[in-house]
């Protein structure tokens, strides 16, 4: 076998220098490693349902079962209002973004510590690790969406043009999960406590978001403060796009987006500044 070392004049050269500056995000580097991102997402999806009997069916069963539980408890027993929509659809429209968000967040939060062997052994932009764990639950989201398409005619809900805006809200959910996940996974490298806090955080967050109840139940004077939770605008956006009644709550969607932008910028800066120490302290 003849090996040829790259002695050509155009050899790639890499300069290694101390990390300096707040805003050195190396985004071109991430673009160069996009194939690895693809493989990491692919791996995540592959291994999730390996050695399960019903495999990918879990992606369909999980949200369905949650919807049934919510409908029985909150819709039938507690009589939570649902703004005139059948409760199952009302709940499912919120569970789409919520399940995606909670999965993306819990996985990205644990991502760095779960990939210690990669971080201490080989170089690639570390950002790919939380990024890939945030992206991989999109597959489950897709399956949930298929169920929704089956459920809607069952409850006599006609699709509207609003559905076309769903990808936008999906992107917003992904951005939220990544922004928060960046903070958590970076903190987790140094403080393993974070790993224990994430499940509670997600639980509390769900009740602080209009998943089982409508936004209209929140008193008007608290609405603005409440909307600082980016999942409020996102869930409202999903409900509007799917059920199509009334107008979207534009204000809460705008507020949510702004909060996400701020969280994301902070998360990225924090992550990049800690990145250089990951291999040393993980």
């Amino acid at each position, binding site marked *: 076998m003849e*090996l*040829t*070392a790259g*002695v050509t004049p155009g050899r790639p*050269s890499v300069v*290694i220098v101390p990390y300096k500056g707040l805003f050195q995000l190396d985004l071109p580097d991430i673009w160069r490693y996009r194939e690895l991102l693809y493989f990491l997402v692919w791996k995540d999806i592959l291994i999730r349902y*390996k050695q399960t009997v019903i495999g990918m069916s879990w992606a369909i069963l999980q949200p369905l079962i949650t919807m049934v539980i919510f409908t029985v408890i909150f819709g039938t027993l507690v009589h939570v209002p649902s703004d005139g929509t059948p409760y199952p659809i009302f709940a499912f429209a919120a569970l789409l973004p919520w399940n995606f968000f909670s999965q993306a967040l819990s996985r990205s939060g644990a991502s760095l510590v779960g990939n210690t062997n*990669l971080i201490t052994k*080989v170089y690639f932009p570390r950002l790919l690790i939380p990024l890939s764990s945030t992206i991989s639950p999109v597959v489950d989201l897709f399956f949930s969406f298929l169920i929704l398409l089956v459920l809607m005619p069952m409850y006599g809900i006609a699709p509207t043009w609003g559905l076309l805006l769903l990808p936008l809200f999906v992107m917003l959910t992904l951005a939220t999960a990544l922004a928060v996940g960046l903070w958590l996974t970076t903190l987790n490298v140094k403080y393993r*406590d974070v790993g224990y806090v994430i499940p509670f955080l997600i639980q509390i967050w769900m009740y602080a978001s209009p998943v089982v109840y409508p936004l209209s139940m929140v008193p008007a004077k608290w609405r603005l403060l409440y909307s600082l939770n980016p999942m409020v605008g996102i869930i409202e956006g999903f409900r509007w796009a799917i059920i199509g009644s009334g107008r979207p709550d534009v204000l809460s969607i705008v507020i949510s987006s702004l909060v996400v932008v701020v969280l994301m910028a902070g998360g990225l800066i924090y992550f990049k500044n800690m990145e250089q120490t990951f291999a040393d302290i993980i």
Partner: protein
Amino acid sequence: MSAQSIVVENLSKQYHVNRSQTRHDTIRDQFMDSLTSLFSRNRRSHQHTKTTSFWALDDISLEIEQGQIVGIIGHNGAGKSTLLKILSRITTPTLGRAEIFGRVGSLLEVGTGFHPELTGRENIFLNGAIIGMTREEINRQFDAIVDFAEIEEFIDMPVKRYSSGMYVRLAFAVSAHLKPDILMIDEVLSVGDLQFQRKCMAYTEELRKSNSTILFVSHNMFAVKSMCNRVIFLSEGRVCFDGAPAEAIKLYEGENKTSALPWAQNEIGADPSQWDIHVDELETFDEQGVPLSLFNYGERMRVRLKFNVRRTVMHPNFLISFIRSDEVACCNYNTEMDGFSVPVLETDGTIELLTPPLNLVSESYKICVLVRDAKFERLYCAQVGKSFHVRHDVLNTHFGVFHEQGEWSIDTGGALS
């Protein structure tokens, strides 16, 4: 002059060692630590959280040309691994800069990212992507990788069902097809089974022929001597010597310094000068007292320790172990079991061991020194010092750890002529 491969300018790396930076994997650790810090903030800050920083690399400058095979040697903590980690971009330098020309591969990353649930095929793609191959490249090399690993019929089976030999072969096959311009090897030649080591050697040899640059970190001076055409000797983060292998190895073996054993740090701390007792110098001599580090099989050796006492130590038990370069602990001598009673130590002094004839196989050994109490419970000191070699024409690690003459007899079923 050949093309540059690696240029390092004033590279330095500082680490902070801090008791509170020890790993907190469980909430209990963290909780107990928080409790201690709540209730005894003052005492704790006195004793433990004295943040000490040290320079693992201190102003290193190097130029390595395409095709050179460079050995990097030095004692534990000299900065060898830190240098490789920076050059392979796993960690960043604190000061200085380095420039790397061409693609970097390392034997450290063999099998990195392998997932037991994935099949051989899936792992080839994943691992290939992680070590820096493009998808197109992996596709092109796929058959060659499978051939090299000799696992055709198992390629679609999860690797958790592989034997360890198959697993290693597959992992190695992927790395071997990366075709790096620069290969970094950190002690790997001394781990893994014989077959794996042979593959590593063959791979290294092939890369050498194709004019790749090779950086080789090792404690095994035999391997360094036979492979490298240039050796860099690091000591305390600085370049002590850079040049001909024979000379570098001579300097390295002449160094009588000792360093703290990493595993003992949680028990007694990382700084030997803070211990009750520690060894300043460790020297080896032949039976007549002539300084020596290369012994013939069957020769006796004198190990002399200069110790420094900080606080009175009641009847310590000195232990001296020889650890082979592949981390096999080969033998141990200790004052307690050898029936030598050490008095109460209050002042500095020297202690000397004269070994029985060394029947160890031909290899490189380092000397570990522990000081415990007579019951082997308390630890006062744990250090590793210089290495020595044992030479024999035939005996090597294939023959085990040591060789002693046995007695034979034969019975051919009465069919004696």
